[in-house]
């Protein structure tokens, strides 16, 4: 059933492997996720991820409701990053319906998405350190900073996590000057927090010893398994949809894409740190250049919004990787005929076994932590 590597050599001390079910109730599976691990002592010789405990029928639900009503459901996919989820769906629908998004809306979308990215990356590092046994200290520092971003999201969209903020053709609420000032304040203070974070972690010998050369994902495997996001970039794959597609107004910003060499847990950690720094660069530019104007395309209706028959795929660089929605509209066009979501968490998780084999149990949890999954998105 489960593939085993390094069979026990005969003629030596007879040892037994034990099969351990890590999850679905486990402190570090980030939700209801299960790994069926075969252990030889502490070493993992077989591992099978088991998913589906949180299946919520997202795609079929969306096929039975209007385009608009799917937006709040995308919030619940990756509940850390509702903004980018919204954007992915809106981008797909806008592509399909041929809606032009006003300038200001595009900039606001960039701002909230990049804030989401730094929020997500800092918390992921926190969670990973939690898995490393740091008693949540980095996590709570990350939460402390996240709080400020969530405050901004709340004053902007009304909710802290389930923002439901974007609409086809723009965003729901305009960003007032006060909110822009709030965002500028957050962006100005964030590098200081990052420095503190790095001082706490980046040179910590225990972290280095735990993370380096653990859970290596080779570049070829990353490409073949269609890994995306920071995980692919940590393996040295130069693939960032913000650069590849230049969707929205990303073509106008000056930022770089950091790439890792080894593709281990430490690279995945540090790529995220570097990406946060790049996100801050984008945020500074976006907040500086934020144009005036409409924040939502005026021709888009809320009710009886219909899309002519056709299909389209829109994708964004979500903090976890490529998040895309493939949508088919048929006659009538009030609701999707087919609605497919390409979740980065799920696809990034497919290489878990390759990364874990031969490592210790303790490494499995940090490898899982470094993959950065949210079960809402894995199971949908």
């Amino acid at each position, binding site marked *: 059933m489960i593939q085993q590597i390094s069979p026990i*050599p005969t003629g030596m*001390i*007879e*040892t*037994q492997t034990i099969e351990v079910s890590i999850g679905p109730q486990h402190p570090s599976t980030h939700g209801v996720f299960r790994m069926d691990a075969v252990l030889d002592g502490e070493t993992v010789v077989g591992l099978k991820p088991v998913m589906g405990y949180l299946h919520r029928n997202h795609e079929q639900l969306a096929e039975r409701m209007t385009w608009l009503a799917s937006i709040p459901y995308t919030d619940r996919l990756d509940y850390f990053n509702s903004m980018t989820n919204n954007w992915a769906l809106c981008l797909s629908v806008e592509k399909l319906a041929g809606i032009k998004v006003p300038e200001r809306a595009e900039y606001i979308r960039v701002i909230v998405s990049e804030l989401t990215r730094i929020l997500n990356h800092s918390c992921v590092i926190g969670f990973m350190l939690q898995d490393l046994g740091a008693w949540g200290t980095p996590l709570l520092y990350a939460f402390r900073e996240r709080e400020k971003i969530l405050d901004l999201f709340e004053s902007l969209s009304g909710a802290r996590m389930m923002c439901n903020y974007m609409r086809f053709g723009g965003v729901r609420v305009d960003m007032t000057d006060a909110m822009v000032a709030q965002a500028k304040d957050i962006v100005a203070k964030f590098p200081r927090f990052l420095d503190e974070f790095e001082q706490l972690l980046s040179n910590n010998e225990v972290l280095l010893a735990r993370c380096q050369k653990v859970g290596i994902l080779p570049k070829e495997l990353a490409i073949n398994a269609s890994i995306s996001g920071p995980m692919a970039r940590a393996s040295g794959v130069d693939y960032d949809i913000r650069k590849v597609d230049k969707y929205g107004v990303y073509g106008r910003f000056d930022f770089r894409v950091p790439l890792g060499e080894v593709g281990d847990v430490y690279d995945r950690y540090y790529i995220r740190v570097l990406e946060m720094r790049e996100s801050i660069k984008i945020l500074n530019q976006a907040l500086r250049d934020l144009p005036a104007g409409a924040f939502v395309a005026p021709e888009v209706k809320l009710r009886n919004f219909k899309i002519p028959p056709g299909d389209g795929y829109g994708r964004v660089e979500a903090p976890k990787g490529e998040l895309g929605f493939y949508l088919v509209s048929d006659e009538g066009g009030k609701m999707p005929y087919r609605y497919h979501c390409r979740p980065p968490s799920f696809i990034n998780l497919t290489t878990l076994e390759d990364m874990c084999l031969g490592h210790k149990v303790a490494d499995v949890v940090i490898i899982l932590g470094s993959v950065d999954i949210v079960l809402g998105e894995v199971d949908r």
Partner: protein
Amino acid sequence: MDYAFWTISGITVLGALLAVTLRNLVHCVLSLILFFLGIAAHYFLLRADFIGAVQILIYIGAVAVLILFAIMLTRNVTGEAGPQEVVGVKWWIGSLCAALTAGLISFAVRADSVAETLSPGPKATVAVADIGKGFVGNWIVPFEAMAVLLTAALIGAVVIALEEVRNRR
């Protein structure tokens, strides 16, 4: 003193009996530990604090734990040990050995010199310093011989372990 002696002796013998009669291997080891503890208590009773502490340190802290570790590594630790032959050839051989040992010890105890040394009293207290001086004084040759032997054993164990690791790779 007598009450303490008899109580501790009872516990020790009980531990020893349980260690050989229980069917579950881990239970056997735990009983064995009880027995070791009883022996250590006897040492304390005889005012041989140092030997008592060493008894706990080595027999409970090292030997018993090593046995436990060996059981955990080699047997199905979560399950029962399986059917075991309780009374058989091995049992008789063991009983014979036990009887011989008991006879030998009782003979030795009856001999005057040993009995005198073991008689309780302040004179018999063994100071740590005396032991130390004994090791590097009168008994230096056997002590060093033992040290060399143990070091050789240690190195041998490392070599075997390294070979196993190499074979695995």
